[in-house]
């Protein structure tokens, strides 16, 4: 093990990073900001553009045409097939995640409209077990993809995940195969898959559905990668470049299509959906907006 001081800068998501109370310090500018103002802007600091993590429900509320989102598979939850116990039994961890996040799983799925276009969507939430993908999350995402195929509509997945859910062992790894196989069928049906990478998207999620988008978008500053910075540093003894594994690093290397501000995400998705699926100009553009 190496305990020397890291010389790289990587973003990490911790509970304290998520604003609580009345004021928060903006990590981008150092200025003190009103939480209310951040919350009103989908957790984006208006002046600096810094993106704080956004929960799945809050994202869904702003993403879809009002009242159009219908949740699916809300009763799909994690099980404990390995009877996994580390410092505490896995089922107790799950109960804690449910309680703390108010969510049934690390991903919320459903169908809804974005500027009038029907889509099937899966939106991950980092607060539930770090967005780790177990069998329940894999099942929900696979069902969302299968729903898109059945309804002949595009599929959008918002990723936010530390990777695989270790407590489900090999089954969590197999969710990568399950979701990717479903995306093979979606591609065969010539239906668009848009993958949106948010902070952070790592490990098994990056190495499966998240990088299989026909179009891949990322939020500014999001940490996106396969191996964690610590593992890379310990294995290779390399000094990691500043900004390594950020959305900006991926764009520069040609690995993603665009970096999109959360405040523009809905409109940008509508443009892409209209181009790839509806194949006519979006009403917003036709009306001279954008």
């Amino acid at each position: 093990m190496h305990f020397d001081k890291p010389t790289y800068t990587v973003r990490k998501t911790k509970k304290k990073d998520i604003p609580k109370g009345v004021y928060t310090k903006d990590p981008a500018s150092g200025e003190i900001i009103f939480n209310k103002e951040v919350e009103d802007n989908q957790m984006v600091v208006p002046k600096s553009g810094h993106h704080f993590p956004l929960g799945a429900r809050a994202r869904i509320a702003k993403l879809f045409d009002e009242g159009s989102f219908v949740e699916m598979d809300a009763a799909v939850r994690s099980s404990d097939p390995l009877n996994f116990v580390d410092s505490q039994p896995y089922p107790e961890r799950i109960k804690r995640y449910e309680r703390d996040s108010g969510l049934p799983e690390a991903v919320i799925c459903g169908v809804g409209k974005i500027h009038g276009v029907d889509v099937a969507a899966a939106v991950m939430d980092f607060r539930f077990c770090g967005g780790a993908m177990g069998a329940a999350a894999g099942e929900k995402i696979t069902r969302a993809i299968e729903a898109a195929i059945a309804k002949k509509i595009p599929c959008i997945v918002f990723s936010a995940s530390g990777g695989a859910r270790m407590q489900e062992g090999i089954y969590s790894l197999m969710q990568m195969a399950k979701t990717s196989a479903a995306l093979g069928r979606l591609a065969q049906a010539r239906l668009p898959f848009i993958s949106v990478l948010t902070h952070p998207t790592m490990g098994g999620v990056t190495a499966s559905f998240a990088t299989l988008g026909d179009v891949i978008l990322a939020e500014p500053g999001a940490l996106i990668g396969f191996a964690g910075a610590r593992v890379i540093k310990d294995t290779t003894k390399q000094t990691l470049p500043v900004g390594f594994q950020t959305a900006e690093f991926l764009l520069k290397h040609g690995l993603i299509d665009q970096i999109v501000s959360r405040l523009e995400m809905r409109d940008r998705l509508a443009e892409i959906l209209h181009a790839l699926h509806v194949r006519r100009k979006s009403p917003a553009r036709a009306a001279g907006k954008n």
Partner: protein
Amino acid sequence: METPTYVLEFEKPLRELVKQLDELRQQSIETNVDLGTEIHAIEGKIEAMQRDIYSNLTPWQKVQIARHPRRPYALDYVGLICESFQELHGDRQFKDDQALVGGTAFFNGDAVMIIAQQKGRDTKEKIARNFGMPQPEGYRKALRLMRMAEKFSLPVLTFIDTPGAFPGIESEARHVSEAIAVNLREMAMLRTPTISVVVGEGGSGGALGIGVTDRVLIFENSYYSVISPEGCAAILWKDGTAAPKAAAALKLSADHLEKLGVVDEVIPEPLGGAHNDPAQAAGALKYALQKHLNDLRALAGEKLLETRYERYRHLGVYEDAGVVRS
């Protein structure tokens, strides 16, 4: 010169007995006294102890055997069970990854495509093979060869043996995640029979990147896991030395994986592990591969793809409205 014998911690009592046996034999020759009875007794003891140790291996001990430096590697098996292996190099874009190799071969007279993760035996080869950790180019070469196999109707046989895909700056910059992800999707759609066999280490996404096949076989002492036991111990137990506990909790050994439905068959190894008799291990593998190839040839076209999709569709256990499902 013979390579120095590598003794695993749990094999040490056995090593002591073997030493005693050698001494007795030497003594018998030097003094010209017949120690046949004593020698026979120790031989019996050795066999009994070997059986005892190897029928009660812990998951962590199996991980040690899977990583044994004398364990047969992928190309050792290819040499033992196939003929005329023609290595086909490179991803046609950036480089040739020597940790993930492939090419055509003949298996029991039939042409097949081999995809293999390969570790190095000596220091020089270990470095050339990057300790069996493939880079994006390895996965892209594998996909090129799998598509070629589909084009010419060759079954694909993949040999899995990796601690994981290589974690490095260049690997990330050339998008190892995408290389693996594309393989998962394309292997699920490949219109030719596919079989993978975990010959040593099945290290996470790096293993799965050539592992989405119709059938998955595994050697008795190999392991297949979402994370290394050391990595899991460091994260969940905050203690790298808790690896034996993590290995047990992860249910990563062959017998568990078969019960979980992730592997289709466990290939038996000779007493003491595959390295004690590679030819015997290879014989068992050859038999199993032929059997599964015969099964798969009966499933043509759409039926093959449908069966493969369903195989992965139901891996994992979850609850739906309180009912446990998979």
